[in-house]
């Protein structure tokens, strides 16, 4: 009963944050809406008894990615004339809503065919950091190492993209 109330509240905040994100024209309000949505999704993970995923979502998404987005937004010093003018925004949103309806209908209908099961919070042997680590290092070892290589490539790429390009200018002069 209590988990139902928590579920409804968290879903309401997740959807309200997402709607705030796509309807605002000022980017910083959109970023704050996405932050609310991400934190509510972290709460839903905890309700699904995935405690380690709850922790990772808060640390990585709300702690790292959203901080980078807000930092870049303040760093760029965006003014009113830098924003694009979108006179037909609401029309495009309605058209997108109509276009996205069939796939939603298909997926919800296919899920309604599955047998229903009780999804209470379980306390032991599921979703904790110990079970997660055992599973990760025994069955998913090679994908885990590949992810670390991907992160290294992304680090080098970001450094290469963000550095000042001065050599070309000197040659042109």
């Amino acid at each position, binding site marked *: 009963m209590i988990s139902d109330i928590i579920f409804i509240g968290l879903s309401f905040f997740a*959807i309200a944050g997402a709607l705030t*994100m*796509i309807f605002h024209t000022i980017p910083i309000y959109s970023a704050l809406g996405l932050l609310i949505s991400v934190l509510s999704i972290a709460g*839903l993970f905890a309700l699904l008894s995935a405690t380690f*995923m709850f922790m990772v979502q808060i640390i990585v998404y709300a702690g790292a990615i959203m901080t980078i987005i807000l930092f870049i937004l303040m760093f760029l010093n965006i003014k009113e004339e830098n924003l694009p003018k979108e006179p037909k925004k609401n029309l495009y949103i309605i058209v997108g809503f109509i*276009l996205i309806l069939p796939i939603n209908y298909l997926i919800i209908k296919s*899920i309604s065919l599955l047998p229903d099961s009780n999804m209470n919070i379980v306390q032991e042997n599921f979703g904790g950091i110990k079970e*997660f680590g055992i599973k990760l290092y025994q069955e998913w070892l090679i994908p885990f190492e590949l992810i670390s290589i*991907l992160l290294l490539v992304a*680090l080098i790429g970001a450094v290469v993209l963000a550095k000042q390009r001065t050599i070309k200018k000197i040659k042109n002069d």
Partner: protein
Amino acid sequence: MTNLMGYSIVSMILFSIGTIGVISRRNIFIIYMSIELMLNGINLFLVTFARYHFNMDGQILAMMTIAIAAAEAAIFLSVIILLFRTKKSLDTNIFNKLSKETK
């Protein structure tokens, strides 16, 4: 409410809002945040099915999605900084350098 259907409806609504944001807005920041929202909706789906089948593979896949989203954030935001330095705008319609002939 806390059954498979409720969680599926919430994650499909989040994914759909992300898709609508990608196809309807022109601000490049909002497009990036919509992509993040789509990844979050799919993560919720994966964790829901991990709980439904009582099998933790879905949670590990969701953690890998989060790692890929972190790598994507680094690259995407540095590209946004480069484009904003040269064009002084966040409009996606003027970032069409690749589709035209250069003089």
